[in-house]
């Protein structure tokens, strides 16, 4: 079953003669459990596509169906609800709340959840559990400034997972990390993928993109080509091999 169905999506900035078509008729389908990379040079429309897939922005034209729900014309408040319930963001610069502990950062999406009402204790338990899953059970009360870049990104991963989203949207997740931490994060993403998560990763780094099952190449606001990189199992092994050699 398709998690993401983008049909002929266009995003136009400005009006009339000075308008720019950042995205120009992009169609793609991402199935449940897939690990997909979106690649392209700067100006290719990669960020714009990420914003639309992440429901931070709406397409000017075309339809975006997320889990059989048309989100193309939703209001800001409705989109916020979709982001909260169905999308987990991982950003290049982590984007943690700097004045909150790791635990509070992971709890934050639960506070904004409208459909399920949990007690504070339940929220804390859930956040603890997810932090443990990313290997940070002994860092829950640390502030972001007391954590390394890799640890901060793992807090961000935990936060992305805490609401059990339809897919995880990772924007250059290793961009700010040294190679070792970067590999750890990639390994974490692979673990998530193997446990059944759907992951869309935006990157300009082809070596990281090849770790995914499929790479969607964008150019000038259009899908240039889609490359199959191999099965998930193979990709996970690639990482392990790299680890051993490192």
């Amino acid at each position, binding site marked *: 079953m398709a998690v993401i169905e983008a049909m002929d999506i266009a995003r136009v900035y400005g009006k009339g003669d000075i308008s720019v078509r950042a995205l120009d008729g992009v169609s793609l389908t991402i199935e449940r459990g897939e690990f997909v990379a979106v690649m392209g040079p700067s100006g290719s429309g990669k960020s714009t596509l990420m914003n639309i897939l992440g429901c931070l922005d709406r397409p000017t034209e075309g339809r975006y169906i997320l889990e059989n729900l048309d989100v193309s014309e939703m209001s*800001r408040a409705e989109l916020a609800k979709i982001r909260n319930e169905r999308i987990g963001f991982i950003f290049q610069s982590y*984007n943690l709340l700097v004045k909150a502990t790791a635990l509070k950062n992971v709890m934050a999406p639960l506070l904004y959840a409208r459909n399920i009402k949990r007690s504070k204790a339940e929220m804390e338990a859930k956040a603890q559990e997810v932090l443990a899953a990313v290997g940070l059970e002994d860092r829950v009360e640390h502030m972001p400034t007391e954590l390394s870049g890799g640890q901060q990104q793992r807090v961000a991963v935990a936060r992305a997972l805490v609401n059990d989203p339809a897919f995880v949207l990772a924007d250059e997740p290793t961009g700010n990390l040294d190679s070792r931490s970067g590999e750890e994060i990639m390994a974490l993403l692979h673990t998530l993928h193997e446990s059944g998560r759907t992951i869309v990763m935006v990157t300009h780094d082809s070596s990281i993109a090849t770790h995914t099952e499929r790479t969607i190449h964008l150019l000038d606001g259009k899908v240039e080509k889609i490359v199959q990189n191999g099965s998930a199992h193979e990709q996970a092994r690639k990482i392990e091999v790299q680890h051993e050699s490192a």
Partner: protein
Amino acid sequence: MNLREFISLAWESISGNKLRSLLTMLGIIIGVASVIIMIGISAGTEAAIEAQITGLGSNLVYINQNFSRGGPSAFQPGGGGGGLVYDDAFAIADNVRGVEAVVVEQPSSETVKAGNVNLESVTILGSTADFPSVRDMELDQGRYFTQQEVDRKQKVAVLGSGLAQELFGDENPIGQTVTVDTTKLTVIGTFEERGLVSGIDFDSQLYTPITVVFQKFTPARFARFLGDRVRQIIVEVESPEVLEGTIEQINLLLARLHDVTLDAADFSVTTQQDIIQTQEATTQAFRSLLAWVAGVSLIVGGIGIMNIMLVSVTERTREIGIRQSIGAAPNDIRGQFLTEAVVLSLIGGVLGVVVGVGGSMIFGAVSDMQTVVVSSSIILAFTSAAAVGIFFGFYPANRASQLDPIEALRHE
């Protein structure tokens, strides 16, 4: 997000920026404190005035010579329409129902001597026997003169406490002689200390029968015109209930005696109530002026909050973007910042109440003005602080809620 979560978020943000929060609240603190202090001062002034007025004696009706109507030309010896005369007092006492006591006062200013003490310009107040009861004066020593002594023009004197002290020191003044102008009076009593009432210093006066004032202390060249004319007759009525009827009777009686119509009367009747109302109107005006000043300072405080909240929204654009990305709807962001502004205002309100109550007490203690902390002013100040927080917090909060998540996330 529910209110409790909003408040805990607001508290985290406020306590994380203590100095700035305090500076932001300063306007509200000053505003609220000034509301409480100003209402305290005006309420204190009002209470002081009220105490003074009731200190004049209760249930009193004042009958005054009406110069504007009678005019100087009305001063003809023995004539009708010539103003109040001494006998009017007896007519009122004898003919009007509901009258408890009637007193006539006629002041004069003379030199007073006793032994080798010599005082210039002492007020000599001629009056009748009911004076102590009508004016609410307590005798310290001796007694007041009787109506018989008034009728017989007995040369006796009762001294105000201050005057007795000045003339005789620690000596017992009873039975001593004082010389007023050239007339010797025997002291038969002294009053207890009374203080200043409505600008009159009752303690420095000398009290003597009004007939003595007519005979001895009215300058000869005026006596021909004035005769036994009096400036004021004070009537004490039995109870407030009969006040209206008594005034009506007095008006009719005096009009008949003076042979005038009520429209062109040569006297006027006022009550304690009239005086209180005039005073109240004055303090009302004073109070509303102070309320305006306090209101303006609250508005200035609110603008301070709006300023800082706008800065705060700009500073925390990234945080807003992060919250939006993890699912905060415009309402959540608006609620967060609005709650912060309101919590700031309310904390400012609490501190303002503390400063205001403390300030009122200190002000009342160190200045000669009386202050009263009115509990309703605390509630008023507090609710207006909350209202200011909501009003001035709304614009920044709304602005925060309308931020574009993509722009906000990109903000450094």
